[in-house]
């Protein structure tokens, strides 16, 4: 009897509790709904507040700016160091603003940005290297159009970047992002151990077959006498390590239109390129675990431990602090030189170089400080400011020699977390001192930190890796299919590369055809068709 009663009470209790719960759920729903409305009201209110003149007595405005967190060993607080103090002193104070930096992990920049944008919490100045992403934000009407703001507050910036660079940041003829200016156009580079070649009495390879023989010699004779020699080091596709311009060297004849619009997987000769790599992998000439090395930690460790004979990565990769310093310590005799070894049938060393735009900066609609943001970028275009941010203080970060700053590496709060502070100077990528030759020299000197051997390496690498270069075709109109499928295709692309190289030799052909078919079905075809359409329109308009 007693027991029954208790059950009844518990049941009424549950009813009450569930009533409370239900109302909580409703409340939560309402709150979320309000959040949505709130966002809209913010958008309309934004221009007003930023147009209002600010008297010095007003509380300072807070300008948030994205910065990449590259996880460099020993890096200082990214929002409180030598550079951020300079910015706040020289830009913040006169404009009654506080500039705050929001770190975003470099390897997850797009993921993080997607989340920040969706939550309406993206920094006032956000940036990404992913042009399609910017187009997608612009298409959803999530970005400020900057034409007027640039006109009224960004003249210096406009003049510095120029029409050509700015064109890369347009969507439907409106300026939605501010592309940085890329002063150095080289992209990939390939590097080989000169000291090993000398020991074996071999010359620098000048084509694929010679490289193959060299790699075999590295494997069999182990000239460095290291434990576990790796003739060719690489990591999972899509990170810093690449295969240089190997694939391009296999491509056959194509018309200009085909070259621009056909996905690489369908280009003549592309299959042979991967077959060649597959053969090398199966002959144990390529890092055995490269596909598992998703963060490039293993490849970096192998290179800096002096186990690697040959590798391909960014053209300036050997000079970056995380490679240069440990290599000097672990393997002081190691001497890498840049090499150009993938010659195509026409005798050219065809390779892709960058367009002259760098990272895309944009101002999300959720921002209340659009005007201040443009002012900030405009301030940065001042040659004096830019020089300071890129090269630091004389006597501390550099010494001047023949007008060219020679870098001095710093640690702690004065260190630069990226090459020439590019993460703090989003309007420029690479040294900026006027002409290209001087820029290359300067860049090399700054990164080499006084080591002549590295300075030479950089100069030579730049020369090699801009020879026979082509840059990707800029349509100037968005490819809707690419906005939709681009990311999926990009991911597939990386998986395909890894899987094809590791495949069993006998299964290679079937796998290649199968994967390419999947790729084309997953949107590759749609992107290609739209590319062809856009290409024809754009070239017809030019005529």
């Amino acid at each position, binding site marked *: 009897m007693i027991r029954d009663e208790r059950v009844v009470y518990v049941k009424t209790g549950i009813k009450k509790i569930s009533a409370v719960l239900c109302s909580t759920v409703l409340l939560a729903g309402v709150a979320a709904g309000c959040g949505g409305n709130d966002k809209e009201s913010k958008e309309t209110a934004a221009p007003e507040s930023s147009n209002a003149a600010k008297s010095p007595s007003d509380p300072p405005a807070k300008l948030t700016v994205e910065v990449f967190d590259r996880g460099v060993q020993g890096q200082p607080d990214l929002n409180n160091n030598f550079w951020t103090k300079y910015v706040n002193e020289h830009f913040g104070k006169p404009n009654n603003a506080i500039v705050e930096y929001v770190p975003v992990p470099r390897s997850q920049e797009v993921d993080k940005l997607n989340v920040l944008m969706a939550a309406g919490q993206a920094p006032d100045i956000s940036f990404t290297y992913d042009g399609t992403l910017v187009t997608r934000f612009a298409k959803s009407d999530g970005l400020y159009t900057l034409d007027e703001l640039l006109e009224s507050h960004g003249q210096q910036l406009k003049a510095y970047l120029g029409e050509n660079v700015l064109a890369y940041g347009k969507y439907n003829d409106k300026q939605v992002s501010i592309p940085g200016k890329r002063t150095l156009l080289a992209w990939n580079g390939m590097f080989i151990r000169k000291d090993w070649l000398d020991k074996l009495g071999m010359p620098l390879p000048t084509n694929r077959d010679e490289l193959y023989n060299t790699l075999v010699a590295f494997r069999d004779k182990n000239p460095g006498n290291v434990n576990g020699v790796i003739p060719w080091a690489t990591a999972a596709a899509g990170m810093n390590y690449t295969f240089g311009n190997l694939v391009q060297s296999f491509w056959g004849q194509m018309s200009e239109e085909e070259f621009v619009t056909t996905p690489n997987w369908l280009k003549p000769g592309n299959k042979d390129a991967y077959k060649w790599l597959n053969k090398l992998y199966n002959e144990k000439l390529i890092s055995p675990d490269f*596909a598992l090395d998703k963060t490039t930690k293993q490849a970096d460790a192998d290179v800096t431990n002096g186990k690697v004979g040959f590798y391909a990565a960014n053209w300036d990769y050997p000079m970056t602090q995380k490679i240069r310093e440990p290599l000097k310590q672990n393997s002081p005799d190691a001497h890498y030189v840049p090499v150009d070894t993938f010659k195509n049938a026409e005798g050219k060393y065809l390779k892709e170089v960058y367009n002259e735009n760098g990272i895309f900066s944009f101002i999300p609609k959720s921002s209340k400080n659009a005007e201040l943001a443009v002012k900030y970028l405009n301030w940065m275009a001042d040659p004096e400011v830019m020089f300071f941010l890129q090269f630091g203080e004389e006597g501390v970060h550099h010494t001047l020699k023949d007008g060219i700053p020679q870098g001095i590496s710093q640690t702690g709060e004065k260190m630069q977390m990226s090459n020439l502070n590019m993460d703090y100077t989003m309007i420029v990528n690479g040294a900026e001192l006027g002409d290209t030759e001087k820029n290359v020299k300067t860049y090399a000197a700054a990164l080499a930190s006084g080591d002549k051997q590295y300075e030479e390496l950089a100069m030579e690498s730049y020369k090699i890796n801009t020879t026979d270069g082509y840059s990707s075709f800029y349509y100037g109109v968005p490819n809707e299919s690419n906005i939709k499928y681009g990311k999926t295709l990009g991911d597939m692309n990386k998986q395909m590369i890894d899987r094809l190289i590791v495949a069993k030799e006998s299964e290679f052909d079937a796998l290649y055809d199968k994967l390419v078919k999947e790729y084309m079905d997953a949107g590759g075809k749609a992107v290609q068709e739209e590319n062809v359409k856009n290409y024809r329109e754009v070239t017809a308009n030019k005529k």
Partner: protein
Amino acid sequence: MKAVLNNQQDQIGLTRRHTFWLRIRRDALLYILLLLPLLYIAIFKYAPIYGLIMAFQDYNIFQGTSGSEWVGLDVFRFIFQQDSFYRALKNTLVLNVLDLVAGFPAPIILAILLNEVRMARFKKLTQTILYLPHFMSWVIIGGIVYLMFSNSGMVNLFLDSLGLSKIEFLSQKTPWLVTYITVGVWQNIGWGTIIYLAAITGINKELYEASDMDGCSRLRKMWHITLPGIKSTINILLILQIGRMVSIGFDRPFVMGNSLVSEYSDVISTFVYRVGISSGDFSQATAVGLFQSVVGLTLLIGANYIAKKLGEDGIW
């Protein structure tokens, strides 16, 4: 128990309404404590349900749910056309079934074995060591697995030094599957044991004493007393596990997977991550999530129904 009885005696003669408030007041502290988990569930489990409407919209992150365009079932249609979705679904089911087969009995066996250990200190120590992996992040476990099982990892170097051929634990599909399941069992076994050990403690000691009198062997006691004693616990956990069949944790497949085994390692959670977070297509990600919940609920109800038909206690 005694307190409860006392309470009930007090209430005789009072109206229901009164007793309800009386109870609340008497156990106010307990109810306040209960409020916290309830709030947690309301905020993190119920409030997000509101976001499900994204699955029926062409969600624009700048317009929010109130400003986005309604598209009906278009998003679902798009998903069901994609091969990669079916692959993710298939892999999720395959990995979970294998996990269930290998991972479900393991803690039960371990708990029964531990229960037989006589030295209390040794038992506690073993238990602690066994459930430690549960608190390790998958990122760390992934690192350990890489160091041990990659082609140039410890295990393969050892095999190599014995003159045996290498096993590609992480880059071949079947060996990867075995590694994935085994590591999962290793990580979870100790933690799962706790619940069963608790259930075993609840078994009436007199039963064991009686069987001792009858001269039962250890094995017989395990089979005829311990196992039936925890049967209902096993049942409930099994039903819950089946309900989770279509959902799968993100970290484990993401950390342990790589492009070479993507045909096995690409599961629903990594699919959602890819389309939702990486590609910013929140509608698709939400739709997949909703689909996953619906199938999960169906499986749960189904398993519960079958359990009841077989004469066992269900979860409701």
